[in-house]
């Protein structure tokens, strides 16, 4: 692994640009900005450019397999995204074979248990911060999660 060792070239994939341009069209948005690690792309139509802070040199680090990545320190979890408040193993059901706490599309009440994160043999119940519907489940049953990992999307 290298700091700044293996960078992608400073040329965005034209296909990516076309796709994003199409998305702008389709969604009627004026701007799309997208960043993965320290690679960032932003496309806009008829707008001015907000200043973008230069990210640090790239580096590729073998990440914990299967673990969702945490949100960067500055970012605020986008409304509705439930993130892991601790490191551990996520379970979507009370036990093996039992029905899941929640399924995609379920209407759920505030405080309802969404999943469990096991840390040091303690089962921590992760509850819904607000009522809504389960729009996405971002973690697999039994997968390790780190602090800040996105778990579910509730809208």
């Amino acid at each position, binding site marked *: *692994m290298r*700091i*700044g060792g293996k960078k992608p070239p400073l040329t965005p994939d034209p296909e990516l640009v076309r796709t994003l341009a199409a998305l702008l069209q389709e969604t009627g948005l004026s701007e799309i900005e997208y960043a993965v690690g*320290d690679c960032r792309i932003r496309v806009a139509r008829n707008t001015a450019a907000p200043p973008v802070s*230069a990210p*640090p*040199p790239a*580096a590729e*680090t*073998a*990440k*914990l397999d299967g*673990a969702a*990545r*945490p*949100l*960067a*320190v500055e970012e605020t979890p986008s409304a509705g995204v439930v993130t892991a408040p*601790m*490191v*551990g*193993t996520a379970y979507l059901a009370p036990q093996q074979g039992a029905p899941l706490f929640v399924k995609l599309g379920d209407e759920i009440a505030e405080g309802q248990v969404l999943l469990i994160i096991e*840390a*040091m043999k*303690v089962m921590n119940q992760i509850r819904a911060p607000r009522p809504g519907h389960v729009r996405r489940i971002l973690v697999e049953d039994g997968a*390790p999660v*780190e*602090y*800040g*990992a996105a778990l579910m999307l509730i809208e």
Partner: protein
Amino acid sequence: MFEKVLIANRGEIALRIHRACREMGIKTVAVHSTADTDAMNVRLADETVCIGPPPARDSYLNVAAIVSAARITGAEAIHPGLGFLSENADFAGIVEEHGFTFIGPSPEHIRLMGDKLSAKAAVSRLGIPTVPGSPEPVRDLAAAAVAAREIGYPVLIKAAGGGGGRGMKIARSEEELARLLPIAQGEAAAFFGKDAVYLERFLARPRHIEVQVLGDGKGEVVHLGERDCSLQRSHQKVLEEAPSPALGLEERQFIGSLAAGAMRELGYKSAGTLEFLYEGGQFYFIEMNTRLQVEHPVSEMISGIDIVCEQLRIAAGAPLGYRQSDIRLEGHAIECRINAENPKTFAPSPGRVTDYHAPGGLGVRVDSALYQGYRVPPYYDSLISKLIIHGKTRNECLMRVRRALEEYVIAGIDTTIPLHQRLVEAARFIDGDYDIGWLERFIDRPG
């Protein structure tokens, strides 16, 4: 040997441990707070786990998160580094209870040395001198005079209630003692409600000298000589050197074997440091650090022994494999601690490193997690680099320190490099003639 080790720390020391693991073919797991996602040790690690938000209590001091991270990554051992949980006996115990190896001493030894009083008692039992004092309060002049004669003048009269130098008096003779005792007792009563006072040997201008030991927990213990850490600012070490310019070969061997002998008796495991005050040819134990220390590299440079590698070997159950007689200390080593601070006001200076270039060449070692573009986070301590220089002689070492400081580029933030450049030009430092109070007097001087 371990397959995979979790490094429960951050910054240059996490990188130091990562390097030792790599050189032993051990995979590394870096745990980090959300403030350290871009840290070099995180970038270089085989696996990484974010364990919490920036505040240390929620991340680097978060026992549950660290143990869970070890679990989900399948690490076999945890290296605590220094600071944070490194001297937390409970943490060491929990780590072992959960079936991981704690890379350090036994929880018992951490606990024993963690408390200053029990530590002092323990090492005196092992024959190591401590600052002499009256066991219980001296009620009257008669008792005080007896105690003082035993302790030896000058003596410090301290209020039992203690604190802030209040009620403290220095008596250089029995006459002074007779005059000052009642005054001290009076002040003690006034400030702390009880007039009980102790006597203790007064050290005017001691040096801070510490001995590095390595034990395998199987009865073998060696020392790697001493480090002189007398150059301090508000109790923070600024520059360390080994050997101490104040010690001769005999004193070195005396204190070294004394420390190693005591640790052998204790059955001490892993790396440790016994800290002493040194004045008038006498050593006085003050405390023991049961962990790796920031300044460990200077001992590595003169002994050729990789202390972190030894910690890993010992934790894996290997015997030391060498004796004191196998250890040869050669040349002279100096470590400059470079902090992200204003060199005059010492105000912390976090932020983005806009230019970075480390010095190179013969005899120059840099232990730092900085890189160009890195952002020094505001949440943790300000040590950003250790410039470690080795030379055949102390003078060659000093010349090399000057040369390397001159080459070192860290732009975008304030650093203490200018302080070190001033320091290496100071006659008293060049002569090796300094005590633990000297640096602060030097800094306050205009220049």
